[in-house]
């Protein structure tokens, strides 16, 4: 990889030089790229491990001693919760209302019913999948199973007493906050690095959710590659992150998918309307905006309800977010709500760089319901 002028202190720009870190947390890989001094970077590295461990202990649905699991066990009865839990619950309730209920944290039972009752790594081992991509292309077309699914509790059933710092779940309404916690953790930790450690610029990414601040170098902007859904080793193009578009999130039915004992392919995006894996026309969606949490929520909503309905709801909510989606018919869609800088922000790679294989698109069409 090319080396840069940031290697030595003599040529380092104001604010320090670039540092890269990565580690495993919350069943995904967390990346940090920071423009900081060596001392700031060392502190940030240690704090990152501790922060994500803290978040995991609060919100993991796989740890019986997590606060989330305790809250789920108390369903129907009020329970005192931490300020951290309260903040995420408020956020989930807010987005539940804004998206008309398509974003719902009450999908834990549906996930467990579909087989996602252990961590994804264990799930892959159980289902015997080594390379999930080939199988998972059909995930969006997963057939419905015969057994009846329970209905999803409305978001209004989540009762929060902010004065008492208490939460009450509806009977049978177990929470899974995995749909928002990663982006929230990224956003919150970026805030900590910026304000507490005074780090001038950085990019933090957990799974497909990321946020940025500052600029990576003098008169530069952050720019990220967007993974191509049909070419996992290639990028569709790049997304420029600056101004009011500093965060991004990608949701996909192709990533976290697995095989049921009957050989049926399933994925983790549950449609609250059916309490089953979504079956929309969107295979992958990337949303960019100011807040990583908002981006993650809308990326999921568009994947769940489909391109037309999802972008309609995005506009209806008055959101400034922009969306890019790959539909199962092989098309790429960009939302109309984007401003005049849209063409500069979303840069599709030249065709020669991204080999779009027609055969694969044909496969997707054949497997569509």
């Amino acid at each position: 990889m090319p080396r840069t002028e940031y290697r030595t202190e003599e040529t380092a720009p104001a604010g320090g030089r670039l540092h890269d870190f990565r580690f495993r947390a919350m069943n995904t890989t967390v990346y940090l790229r920071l423009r900081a001094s060596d001392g700031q970077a060392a502190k940030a590295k240690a704090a990152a491990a501790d922060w994500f461990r803290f978040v995991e202990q609060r919100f993991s649905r796989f740890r019986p001693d997590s606060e989330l699991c305790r809250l789920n066990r108390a369903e129907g009865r009020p329970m005192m919760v931490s300020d951290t839990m309260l903040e995420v619950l408020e956020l989930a309730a807010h987005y539940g209302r804004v998206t008309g209920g398509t974003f719902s944290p009450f999908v834990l039972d549906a996930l467990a019913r579909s087989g996602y009752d252990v961590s994804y790594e264990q799930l892959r081992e159980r289902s015997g999948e080594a390379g999930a991509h080939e199988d998972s292309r059909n995930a969006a077309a997963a057939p419905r199973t015969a057994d009846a699914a329970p209905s999803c509790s409305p978001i209004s059933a989540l009762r929060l007493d902010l004065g008492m710092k208490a939460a009450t779940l509806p009977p049978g309404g177990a929470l899974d906050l995995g749909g928002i916690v990663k982006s929230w953790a990224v956003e919150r930790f970026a805030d900590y690095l910026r304000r507490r450690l005074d780090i001038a610029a950085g990019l933090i990414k957990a799974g497909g959710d990321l946020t940025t601040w500052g600029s990576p170098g003098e008169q530069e902007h952050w720019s990220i590659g967007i993974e191509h859904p049909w070419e996992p080793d290639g990028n569709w193009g790049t997304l420029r992150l600056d101004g009011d578009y500093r965060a991004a999130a990608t949701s996909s039915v192709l990533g976290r998918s697995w095989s049921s004992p009957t050989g049926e392919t399933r994925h983790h995006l549950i449609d609250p309307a059916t309490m089953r894996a979504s079956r929309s026309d969107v295979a992958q969606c990337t949303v960019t905006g100011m807040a990583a949490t908002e981006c993650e929520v809308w990326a999921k909503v568009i994947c769940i309800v489909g391109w037309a309905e999802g972008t309609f709801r995005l506009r209806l909510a008055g959101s400034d977010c922009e969306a890019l989606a790959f539909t199962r018919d092989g098309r790429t869609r960009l939302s109309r709500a984007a401003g005049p800088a849209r063409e500069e922000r979303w840069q599709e790679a030249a065709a020669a760089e991204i080999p779009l294989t027609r055969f694969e698109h044909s496969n997707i069409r054949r497997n569509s319901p």
Partner: protein
Amino acid sequence: MTRDKWFKWKIAMAGTAGMAFLFHVIKTSPDYEAAVSQNAAVPAAETAEESQDPVWQEWLSGVETAQPEAEIGGESAQRRGRGEPGFDTGGQGWQGSDGDAADSRTWDASGDAARTGRS
């Protein structure tokens, strides 16, 4: 008796002068100056805001309770934290480079670290 008192006064004066000299040395040292300027750089309003952030309070108080002697967010906090993380087997294996990052313009589009996809 009078001589004893005078001797005590002399010890006290010498001690006071010694302390004053020590404070003077510390106060004129570059390290002290650096620490003062670093603290002054944090706006008072922001510090107050941070201290009122309940999430940070819960997080950081957990660290302090777990390892009172550890610097918050320090290496020791990472090693002796709240027990084994429940993320993945193998815990948190760090990879990366300190101050050795590739140019952002090339890293962005090609490096896996800066790709978004499949969450």
